[in-house]
């Protein structure tokens, strides 16, 4: 039980730290974002008093409040689920924009992460089983894949398959000329899959190498354990040794890593979404940064952080259940 209590305390403290960080960053950094932002907004058009007021609250430019009062006020808004109002898409609440973008990111990056994991574990287990053969010489090339800047891979894919060959669309999550908005029809699902192919491929290419390498190394270590030798000596079929004895045990650390990367799905591929103009959370955040929409930017950051924490917490609980050793080690 202490294991779960400790983890719970850790996540509570981390959540508090992340929210406080979100509150402090605009106030602690040099320069006066409020003045800069107001000047920028005035240059681009009129500023209504309500906009000015919301920016004031957000950036802590309210003169008659101490930092502590602002902090309390900030928490009050947060508890009520009020993340402020977007400046670029005035007066849409930030929460609404984020809610619209989340499904796209989770769907795309989540699916791609699962595909990449399954592929990497399978290939890695095979490469580990075949240790000491020609497969070994292919292993270093996986590091090449890991050190590729993934948004550059995206650029190359777009250049080859979209611009030159014209096989795939360049931007968007579905055909905006054909559909007015998301709807439940086979044609729409087809369009979504068609648009998601290159972004998903980008994620798989840039992450499969890591799974493969980690699994392969664990497999090599596991196969040199004594119980594998025992299993071989007993005359068990190699397929059984491979599946039940080696792969199952070697996959444990990768499974933990998989949990972590599922947690980071929302934070996942900000730059990739920008390259493909995919309407997910990353695109939203970058759009906010470009337009100095600080409320939106901080809202997205907060949602990303909270999503990561929640996912990791759930993974922690599950993993503590699957592998009892983690519980005792941390106690």
């Amino acid at each position, binding site marked *: 039980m202490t294991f779960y209590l400790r983890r719970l305390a850790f996540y509570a403290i981390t959540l508090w730290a992340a929210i406080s960080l979100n509150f402090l960053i605009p106030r602690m950094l040099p320069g006066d974002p409020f003045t800069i932002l107001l000047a920028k907004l005035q240059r681009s058009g009129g500023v209504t008093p309500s906009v000015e007021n919301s920016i004031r609250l957000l950036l802590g430019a309210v003169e008659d409040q101490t930092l502590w009062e602002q902090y309390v006020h900030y928490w009050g808004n947060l508890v009520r689920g009020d993340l402020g109002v977007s400046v670029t898409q005035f007066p849409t609440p930030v929460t609404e924009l984020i809610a619209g973008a989340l499904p796209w990111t989770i769907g795309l990056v989540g699916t791609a992460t699962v595909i990449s994991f399954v592929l990497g574990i399978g290939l890695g287990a095979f490469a580990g089983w075949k*240790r000491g053969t020609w497969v070994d010489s292919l292993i*270093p090339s996986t590091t090449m894949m890991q050190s590729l*800047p993934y*948004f*550059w891979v995206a650029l190359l894919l777009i250049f080859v398959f979209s611009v030159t060959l014209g096989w795939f669309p360049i931007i968007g999550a579905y055909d905006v000329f054909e559909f007015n908005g998301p709807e439940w029809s086979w044609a729409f699902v087809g369009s979504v899959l068609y648009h998601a192919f290159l972004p998903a491929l980008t994620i798989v290419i840039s992450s499969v190498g890591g799974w493969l390498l980690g699994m392969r190394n664990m497999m090599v*270590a596991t196969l040199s354990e004594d119980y594998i030798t025992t299993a071989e000596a007993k005359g068990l079929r190699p397929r059984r*040794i491979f599946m039940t004895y080696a792969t199952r045990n070697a996959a444990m650390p990768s499974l933990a890593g998989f949990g972590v990367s599922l947690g980071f799905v929302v934070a996942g591929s900000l730059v990739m979404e920008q390259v493909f103009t995919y309407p997910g959370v990353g695109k939203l955040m970058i759009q906010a940064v470009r337009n100095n929409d600080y409320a939106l930017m901080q809202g997205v950051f907060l949602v990303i*952080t909270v999503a990561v924490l929640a996912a990791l917490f759930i993974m922690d609980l599950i993993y503590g259940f699957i592998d009892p050793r983690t519980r005792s080690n941390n106690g």
Partner: protein
Amino acid sequence: MADRRTRSALTWSGKLITGVVFLGAIVLFALIAPLLTQDPRDSDNPAMLPPGPDHLLGTTSLGYDVLAQLAEGARGSLIVGVTAGLVAIVLALVFGVVAGYLRGWTDEVLSLVTGIMLVIPGLPLMIVIASYLEVRSLWVVALILGVTAFAGPAVVLRSQARSLRVRDYVAAAQVAGERAPRVILVEVLPNLLPLLAAQFLFAILIAILGEAGLSYLGLGPNGSITWGTMLNDAQGGGALTRGAWWWFVPPGLMIALFGCGLSLVNFAIDEVVNPKLRLAPAAAKRVRKARRSGRDKLGAARDHEPAPSTAAGEPSTSRSAEEPRDGAADQKERVDV
């Protein structure tokens, strides 16, 4: 026996040599090339020239020479990468090694900070910080990258330091009355060096990739050229739709090659630190070989040629490819015999 040992030593250092050659070539390129190429901010050239004799890598939409930009960008990216790597590794030493060695409340607090930094997503945090900074020099960007990247190495170093602190020689130093800082520096740290080196290289890689991402989004260092800002310019200048591959392929390729060099060196370090990775495949190879030559001596009917006992020069790849499918076939055959 002797030839096998030399061969495994060769494949070991093969990775190392390749990695070092990659890294060395790129560092040399960053040091020397900017002296030989034209001014990277000279826009007098014709715009969007494909690679040719005058401009080896062509020009951009603003008439900048791509090769000159690549050389200048190499300097920028390497400065950011190495500085951020140093910042990250120094922080990792404090938060990892000190925490792992001291235990108790210091450990709890330092580990909590590490844990928090580990789960707060790095790139979004960098984006938020960078967007509030109006002026971002190379050094500021490096600092942000370093501070947001120390948690991973810190976790690795902490677990290693924890296992080192119970070793006999550390206990001996403590009994001899050495103070904690000295024990950490003299007894613990030297044994962490391979791991530290690997983590440092990894931190550089993460920083260079992070810088490229930030710069691509337009949040990189202002006024400096890096591989990331080149990609940002290429995107803004419509290099993709106008087919100017010579503009956006080289910067990404440089990052990939540099990262590959770092990973290869890391690979070599990994195999030194973790001998199982090196010994187990070699052992598996030996077992298979022994099994095969054992069968051949038995004189059982064979479809394929008897394997030459030890043909030193023969590449192992071609031989293994023709082998019967690993254990499966082997064991069945053994039962039949």
